[in-house]
């Protein structure tokens, strides 16, 4: 099945009802996307499909045919969000971080704290208490640098 993965054409043979999460991790070797709750509450497995955040544990592979999928690996190594998450200690155990960053990628430049909190309503973190995460995203948003090419 053909789709676009992190900006490049991909063609992967997998069961049409395989979870997108498993195809990414096991067929494509992209293990940055994490599995959390399996019921769409924690957001750890968030990836972008055609620019919109979704839970990869709840999406059948067939439903991304011909669509653009972006995972945390699609941001490369030097994205401002990564830099600010490091600087602000926005990550502790790290399981929620890729999902948090993928949602942050969809925020408008100069997003307000309220917009950031609403956008992240579907992402749970059990370590940080969220404040450091909000700070990291707010700093990236101030620089207008949160968005990625999706």
């Amino acid at each position, binding site marked *: 099945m053909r789709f676009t993965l992190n900006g490049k054409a991909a063609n992967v043979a997998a*069961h*049409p*009802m*395989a*979870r997108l999460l498993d195809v990414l991790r096991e067929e494509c070797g992209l293990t940055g996307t994490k599995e959390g709750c*399996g*019921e*769409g*509450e924690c*957001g750890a497995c*968030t990836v972008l*499909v055609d620019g*919109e*955040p*979704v*839970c990869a*544990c*709840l*999406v*059948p592979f*067939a*439903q991304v*045919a011909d669509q653009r999928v972006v995972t945390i690996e699609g941001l490369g190594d030097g994205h401002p969000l990564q830099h600010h998450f490091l600087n602000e200690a926005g990550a502790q155990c790290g399981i929620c971080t890729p999902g948090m960053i993928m*949602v942050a990628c*969809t925020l408008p430049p100069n997003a307000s704290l309220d917009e950031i909190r609403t*956008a*992240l*309503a*579907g*992402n*749970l973190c059990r370590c940080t208490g969220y404040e450091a995460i909000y700070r990291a995203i707010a700093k990236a948003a101030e620089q207008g640098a949160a968005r990625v090419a999706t």
Partner: protein
Amino acid sequence: MRTAISALELRQPSTLDEALRMMRDEKLVPLAGTTDVYVSVNFGTLTAQRFIDLWPLDPLREIAVRGSVLSIGALASYTTIIRSPDVNARLPMLIESARQIGGAQIQNRGTLGGNIANGSPAGDTLPVLAVAEAVLVLRTIDGERRVPFSQFYTGYRASVLRPDELIVAVEFGPLEGRQWFRKVGTRAAQAISKVVMAGVRGPLPRIALGSVAATVVRLPLTERALASGTAIDDAERVLQSEIKPLDDVRSTAEYRRRVAGNLLRRFWAESA
């Protein structure tokens, strides 16, 4: 343990007619945004094995106003609904309910038709459809019928939807009066309702509650009491006679009764 995917089959129609023919000829469970079905996959509670993927059928996502009727395609996601100027103008309570379903990730995939077909008594849009007196457009390959939302459910997760039939759209006539919606869950986001209520303060008030009975319920006796100017204490007593909440994993019957009464009072005070 998670359901073994290899045993599952997926039919992939590219048009609605093709989908309806498959529904006629085979026993298939429709997939829309899969935010409910894939929870069953992940928890190993899935019983069906043969599915049909409706997600690519874009015409079913259309939101349009035709004459005085607002029509929302069954595949319209909560995000699509939230962004629709027509829905914002006519059904602010539906926007409010859509905003409180899951986070952005769920709102991007979950659909109005899916919420109806899933038929959970806790479905957040269902009280809205009940008080808006929505009409469901159901289609088979042989034709279409319109079923008032109030006649759709026949019991707990049971409905008049036939095995070969798909929900294709939800229609709303003009609605007079102030709209009100409130969901009470464990937290403001990402929680399934303990009690959910929608109300319209029109010439005749309308009230519907979720999570207080086997299906979403309208409260005709409470509505009549309010319309006739009954004191709110008495109206609440009527409400208590019209609901049958249960103890379950999310809450207790006693708590739900208390909250349902409080919501009635709040609706009446805030919509005055």
